[in-house]
């Protein structure tokens, strides 16, 4: 049953991801990206990481997608759905991408991935909370500094227009 769910979610995610790069309209790309995020949230649920799934929906779809759609609308190209979709170098770039794909596929299929042992604990969120202020406190505090730095930087850049 889990296999079926995983297959469906992967199809949704990959299909949406393909549509993101092939749709001519920028806004529709953003909407397909949102569908891809939903697929990823579903895969997190299958991994018993429910907190991560809800974080994906709350932050990526609720906040970052809105930011992206605003950014798309801020650029004037959104009104023009007839931009050229292939530039002249597409042959060369396509070749490199295919090479990269073959290399990655070879790596993924040959590495012996370690499988987690034992049951997933029931109280993952409590453990996450305890870890934030325990072993991982430095990254936790630096995360807040990073967030503030990002906010200040973006405010400075966005206000230059005025």
């Amino acid at each position, binding site marked *: 049953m*889990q296999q079926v*769910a995983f297959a469906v979610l992967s199809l949704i995610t990959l299909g949406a991801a393909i549509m993101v790069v092939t749709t001519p309209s920028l806004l529709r790309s953003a909407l397909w990206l949102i569908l891809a995020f939903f697929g990823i949230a579903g895969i997190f*649920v*299958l991994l*018993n990481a*429910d*907190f991560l799934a809800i*974080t994906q929906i*709350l*932050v990526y779809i*609720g*906040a*970052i997608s*809105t*930011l992206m759609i*605003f*950014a798309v*609308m*801020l650029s004037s190209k959104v*009104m023009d759905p007839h931009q050229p979709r292939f530039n002249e170098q597409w042959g060369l770039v396509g070749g490199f991408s295919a090479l990269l794909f073959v290399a990655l596929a070879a790596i993924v299929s040959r590495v012996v991935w370690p499988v987690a042992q034992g049951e997933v604990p*029931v109280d993952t*969120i*409590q*453990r*996450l*909370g*305890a870890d*934030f*202020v*325990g072993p991982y*406190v430095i990254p*936790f*505090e630096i*995360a*807040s*500094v990073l*967030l*503030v730095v*990002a*906010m*200040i930087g*973006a*405010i400075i850049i*966005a*206000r230059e*227009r*005025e």
Partner: protein
Amino acid sequence: MLPQYAFIAVFAIIAFALPIIGLIISWLIRPKKPNPAKNATYECGMETIGDTWVQFKAQYYLYALVFVVFDVEAIFIFPWAVAYNKLGLYALIEMILFVAVLVGGLLYAWRKGALDWH
């Protein structure tokens, strides 16, 4: 835990099916008489002037930005809140530090007018 999410998945399918079924029923029983006057875009009863493109104020982007930062902060607060009762005093001090840094950021945004609507 997974059976609960199976319920959510079933629920989501039905929650999407309800509006779709409603719209199909409506499509079957409503009149369809398009004519140019009805299909034109609404602009207070006049013909539209100019393209449908509004000057997008950067202000909206700034609001979304500050929102992203505080949203991520809230996400960090939740696991801490759930685990709080079992942790020691250090949990409190570290969270105060975390929130203080972000409040500093909020004050900066406030002073720079990023939160004002012009």
